[in-house]
């Protein structure tokens, strides 16, 4: 288990290094002169030169990458080109906001979806199951921005006026006092992530319920509730953990749309803004950060699955 953990961490690090190369290569491969792009209408030769030096554009690519990477390792994310502020200061609050968003979403969506999946599996082919699966299907089918638009009209601007339409978050106030700004983004994320988890849980649960060992438990006289709790649930823990972490990882990328629509000051929205304003250091830092969240969650998913599945645990030794 320990060796496996070390291997997984090593692999995650390697992944991040490679991603950093890709991100760097991609962003530095911008057509034209990054400095010119940045200055745009204000590009005077003198301004251009000073910006080029500031961006190390006058050095060879490998040196640029090395500078960037060493800075990164030392926690210096560089300075935003657009605002000339340190990237760390610029996105610090946004990272926190996004993390809160993801965590809250996870805390609500995971138990809800798991419960839903289990219930529909137990009530297989009954009305509740069919209704749930139709609803889930429709949710999967509708693009997430449509939900955003719908919820805004429903709760903020047209029908009810109980929630804010855009998520303005004042970094100086405690997040708790601004909880209302999180409601609609969380609601949207919960809704869009529900089907994936619930359907996986349902499928695993059905598989477990049809297994020989559940039949055996019933033949041993184990009460039905206990059959589900003690026999079926442990068997699905691994896959459920896996899909949950993967859904969260997916959300880390999927927040782009939701954050943009709600103008939620998080890293997904910042990423889009960074791309639009060609703010290379910001884009680089955010791309790396999103990838890191993704990599970490995926690693956690793998390790957790192994930890929860005895057969794999043995194999890992």
């Amino acid at each position, binding site marked *: 288990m320990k060796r496996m953990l070390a291997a997984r961490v090593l692999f995650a690090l390697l992944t991040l290094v490679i991603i950093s190369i890709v991100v760097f290569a991609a962003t530095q491969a911008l057509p034209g002169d990054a400095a010119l792009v940045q200055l745009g209408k204000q590009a005077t030769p003198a301004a251009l030169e000073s910006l080029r030096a500031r961006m190390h554009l006058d050095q060879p690519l490998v040196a640029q990458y090395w500078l960037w990477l060493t800075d990164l390792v030392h926690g210096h994310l560089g300075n935003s080109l657009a605002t000339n502020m340190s990237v760390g200061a610029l996105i610090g609050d946004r990272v926190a906001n996004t993390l809160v968003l993801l965590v809250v979403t996870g805390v609500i969506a995971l138990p809800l979806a798991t419960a839903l999946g289990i219930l529909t599996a137990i009530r297989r082919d009954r009305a509740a199951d069919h209704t749930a699966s139709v609803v889930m299907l429709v949710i999967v089918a509708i693009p997430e921005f449509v939900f955003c638009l719908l919820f805004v009209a429903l709760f903020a601007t047209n029908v009810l006026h109980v929630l804010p339409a855009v998520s303005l978050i004042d970094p100086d106030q405690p997040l708790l006092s601004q909880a209302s700004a999180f409601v609609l983004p969380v609601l949207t994320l919960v809704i869009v992530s529900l089907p994936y988890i619930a359907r996986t849980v349902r499928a695993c649960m059905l598989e477990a319920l049809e297994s020989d060992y559940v*039949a055996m438990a019933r033949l*041993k006289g184990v009460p039905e509730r206990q059959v589900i709790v003690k026999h079926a649930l442990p068997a699905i823990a691994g896959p459920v953990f896996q899909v949950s972490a993967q859904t969260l990882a997916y959300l880390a990328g999927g927040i782009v749309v939701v954050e943009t629509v709600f103008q939620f000051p998080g890293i997904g929205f910042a990423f889009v803004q960074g791309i639009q304003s060609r703010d290379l250091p910001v884009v680089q830092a955010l791309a790396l950060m999103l990838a890191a969240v993704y990599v970490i969650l995926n690693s956690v998913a793998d390790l957790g699955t192994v930890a929860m*599945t005895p057969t794999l645990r043995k194999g890992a030794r």
Partner: protein
Amino acid sequence: MTAVAETVKQAIEVADLRVDLADRDVNVVRDIGFSLRPGQILGVIGESGSGKTTVGSALLGYARPGTRITGGSVVVDGVDVLSLRGPALRKRRGELISYVPQDPFSSLNPCRRLGAQLAETLAVHGVDSKAEQRERIERILEDVRLPSTKEFLRRYPHEISGGQQQRIVIAMGFICNPKVVVLDEPTTGLDVTTQAHVLRMVRELCERHRTAGIYVSHDLAVVGGLADRIGVMYYGRLVEAGPADAIVRAAGHPYSRGLIQVIPDPHRRRVLSSVRGRVAPLDERPDGCVFAARCDLAEPECRTGEIQPVALESGHVAMCRRTEVVRSSPPANAALAARVSAPAEAGQGFLSVRELTASYSGYQVLKDIGLDVPRGLVTALVGESGSGKTTLGRCIAGLHEEATGAMTVGGSPLRFGARNRSREERRTVQYIFQNASEALNPRRSVRDSIAEPLITLGSVAGSAELDERVDALLDDVALNPRLATRRPSELSGGERQRVTIARALATDPSLLVCDEITSALDVSVQASILLLIERLCAEKNLTLLFVTHNLAVVRAIADRVAVLDTGVIVEEGAVDQVLDSPQHAYTQALLKDTPALDLD
């Protein structure tokens, strides 16, 4: 008077049990009735699909998904299990009547420790005290000869061997001291030695706990020595039931007799015969006797009306109109068969293996093997599970390359690894896999599977000739060429194995390595495959290396035998010589454990 006294003492009484499919009006089993006294064992035998599992689980009031118990009664210790519902039924399961499933691995929860699963069985039946649970677990594990250390109880099912898993589920079946235990083929898939252990253990446990046992199997040889009574099932009916001895020696139903005739005997070579034909699908239930279509003695009257049970002697009934005729016709297998070919001299090997050592990523499983397979004869390779039989076969077939040593075929050296061999070598040596459903691509038709070696190694001109060759090969293995368009899933197990044989024959090989080609089959199907192999050997002058763990099969088919024990050949020689007077202790033990019907 006595009848009444008898009834009181019964542990289980089953009458008119009937199970139908849930969605269609199709009968799966019906008219099942028997009774057992405490400590007695009923062996239920019958070929695959005859309804054994259905009956076994119905005894616990449990109908598998898709089926429904539609009638009858199962009275265990005075309680009619079938009349119970919900929690009342649940409480009786495991406590009054318990079930030991066919496949222990899939029946143990992979995510829970052995200790927890054993303790749970006690806990749901009211044994709440940890100490008492602990004590009873210890006791039952001792009964099944498993350690009851903390470390062992903390293991997960995949961390113990198949035999141990089997013993755990048996322990689970007995742990609550039920009145009746249903054991559903608990030894299928185990090697003879382990099987012998389990059988002894079941006997002991039933006697010690005064538990009535219902032991389901397809192999009469297994049940013959164990059961007090035997019930023969065919097509959802109990076609014959009676004392074990009476069934074995004087069966009154042609099907029971057929079953006896298909069982090879390790102690003497007998002529095998097989029951012709196939079982009809469930929804085509014929009128009259369900066996009539496959029965040599059937008269037109057998095919109409209800067949009534005929009482033969006390407690022995058969569902046959012609029991008298059946019992009076001489048993076909009484004759001892003599091998035509004379045992070849050693050193005349067609295949010879010298100093073969094989390992898996460094772990050595075969040590210094020397083996000669004489031309034109059947050489059997026997040994327990894990002794390395398959590995040796795979080395010869070119499927295992991590090996050293020398092999020659017909005098020319044979390299390890099929890709290193010439076309001719690959053509000459063919290998048939243990599990036919594994060996055939489920997505490809029979024709495509058989055509593959013809295309790769044969020389066929055009598709017309190809079709012709395929049809001829199917004919060789006694399959209807119409089956050529089917996929493996549309074939029975025996048919599938015939296809793999046909495929091996396609290259016109000289040496055929057969790896346990019958061990996954019913005894009745096994007999027909053995007959087929025997015929092909004679017709095509094949040299056979026949890998098996069953000494009875060896006696039936082989000329020579080599005994493999943990990677070393411990004994080798002509079959009759080795089996009649085994020299090595290992061979002796193997022989002792091989179940046999005592017909004399």
